[in-house]
């Protein structure tokens, strides 16, 4: 397997980072793992030998989108794409697992994966349409009334009129699903946005800034509970910053980047490490020493056999994730 990978041509001037003839971590560990973890049905589970699920399949396809058009990656990608298309629900959404009846947050990831392969624009458009039509539950009349009558203002301090996207239909807006949908939106519409899409973008971006933790960074979406400031987490911070990269010069972005950079060194989990690395690099902050750090973490627990983490690690070690970067100007748009 490794031989086939090592001889496969790379795209866009991609260099093999291995030194002294040694295979890089990406080639030696990530790619063989991902290829071997693919299920016979074409999808990937969260771990090898688990049932195929939309999220790990989408992350793996995003890594494969950056690789050669030749086998073995092309074969794996085409089987994965076929699986993903088959998992789409009639309303255009994607569920977490194909046997489920309702779409959810994974719709943005599946759409992104297909879009970055330049395939199935109809399926992607249908998925995005579903995302545009599904609103989180906090905006409903009943919910607003409930908040007004029963909820103490000291419990959470946030602007509920600013809506993004929820994890599952009809529940509240949260940082990560909002960021995923915004990233897809930016990839689909590099230029002017249709009016209804523009409205969702504006609301979602404002919601993300509203949910930022004091001092920078994001947690899942509660910056204050009972007057106490929430602690940021790496994952939500990364996705929010990537979704908001059009506003890279804003003080909130820079403050959050500073928090992320401070957090990077002591990070103990491979997922946090590679996500932070991808984000800092997307913002032009070069961080050295990712590969040795990943080797150390891999030696400890083998990434707990996580397909998603392995795909992220491969992306972070690669020459750049096209899907993560669309920023063309450093100017902030308020």
């Amino acid at each position, binding site marked *: 397997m490794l031989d086939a990978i090592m001889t496969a041509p790379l795209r866009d001037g991609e260099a093999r980072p291995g030194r002294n003839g040694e295979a890089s971590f990406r080639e030696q560990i990530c790619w063989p793992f991902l290829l071997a973890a693919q299920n016979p049905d074409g999808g990937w589970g*969260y771990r090898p030998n688990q049932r195929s699920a939309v999220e790990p399949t989408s992350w793996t396809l995003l890594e494969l989108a950056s690789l050669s058009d030749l086998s073995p990656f092309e074969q794996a990608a085409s089987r994965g794409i076929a699986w993903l298309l088959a998992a789409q629900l009639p309303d255009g959404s994607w569920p*977490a697992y194909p046997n489920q009846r309702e779409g959810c947050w994974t719709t943005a990831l599946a759409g992104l994966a297909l879009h970055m392969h330049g395939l199935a624009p109809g399926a992607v458009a249908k998925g995005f349409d579903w995302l545009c039509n599904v609103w989180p539950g906090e905006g409903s009349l009943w919910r607003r009334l409930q908040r007004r009558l029963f909820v103490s203002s000291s419990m959470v301090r946030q602007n509920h009129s600013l809506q993004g996207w929820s994890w599952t239909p009809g529940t509240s807006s*949260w940082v990560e699903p909002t960021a995923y949908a915004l990233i897809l939106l930016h990839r689909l519409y590099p230029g002017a946005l249709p009016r209804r899409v523009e409205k969702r973008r504006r609301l979602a971006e404002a919601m993300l800034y509203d949910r930022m933790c004091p001092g920078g960074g994001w947690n899942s979406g509660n910056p204050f*509970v009972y007057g*106490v400031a929430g602690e940021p*987490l790496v994952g939500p911070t990364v996705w929010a910053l990537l979704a908001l990269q059009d506003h890279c010069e804003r003080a909130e972005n820079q403050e959050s980047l500073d928090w992320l950079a401070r957090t990077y060194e002591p990070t103990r*989990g491979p997922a946090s490490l590679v996500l932070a690395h991808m984000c800092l690099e997307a913002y032009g902050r070069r961080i050295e020493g990712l590969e040795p750090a990943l080797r150390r973490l891999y030696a400890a627990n083998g990434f*707990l056999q996580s397909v998603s983490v392995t795909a992220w690690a491969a992306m972070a070690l690669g020459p750049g994730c096209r899907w993560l970067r669309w920023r063309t100007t450093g100017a902030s748009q308020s």
Partner: protein
Amino acid sequence: MSVSTGQLAPSFTRPPSRVAVRRAENYQADLPSLLFETLREFDLPVRGKTVLLKPNFVGPDPLGVINTHPAVVGAAKESLLRLGAKEVMVGDGPALERDTEAILETMRLRDHIGPLASSFVDLNLEDVRRVPLRTRASRLKELYLPEAVLRADLVVSLPKLKTHHWAGVTLSLKNMFGIVPGGCYGWPKNILHWSGITRSVLDINSTVRPDFAIVDGIMGMEGNGPIQGVPRPCGVLVLGNDPVAVDATCARIMGLVPERIEHLAQASYLLGHLRDEKIQQIGESIASVRTPFKVLPAFRRLRAAGEGRPWHSNCLA
């Protein structure tokens, strides 16, 4: 499998429950011996069985004040294996932090339970199965639940003794939120909040009722728990085969009235005993270990000395 089949029963049909309260001043104590000796008193049917330990892992916790302490998890695993369990897995699905490995590494869990790849399951990302809920307290009707939970012969809830800013307390019943997979429902599992925390706690526990509970009360948390509260040393482990009785005992130790904690009061209708006359106490008396916990103003009514009224609205359909 651990999907409940016969445990839903009104209190008056249930035999009294047994709850053990053991002193352990710190995590350097001989917890394996303490737990082994106590578990032996319960005659747990673990021989040849697959056991899932469900701790409460919330986030990176270098000071050991938020998560179930790894020494307690390790001691529980060791004790159950000594009692003849065929396999003891540790599994949780943290509600907010997606980087589960970061949580486990910060706690140094593998120093206590062995290699993580073979002894820990991330319940957020396990294969799932659709399970109809056995009660209709919430509107959920069904949930996708991890196969690792459904396959286990016994599920042991292993929470930390903490106050909770939405539910009042988080103990062995609330801890079962962690079996609901983030891979399906997100981080946090917001659908449970929308369905009502109390009602969701009831539906989850009626469907997968923990067979046993071990509460880590050596170092608890008071005030704005479960994450941002203040560490509260309490020096106890509380164990029992009735999670409602265990939680009620913990509440009494915390200086709270269990009848005023909504999900405990509701759970007592079908899931276990709340009244102290129905709970046989083993080990320390509650009075000897009572450690009043501070609560947020919104939960003042829960305090034993307060004037609050118990919750009585019946939401079980």
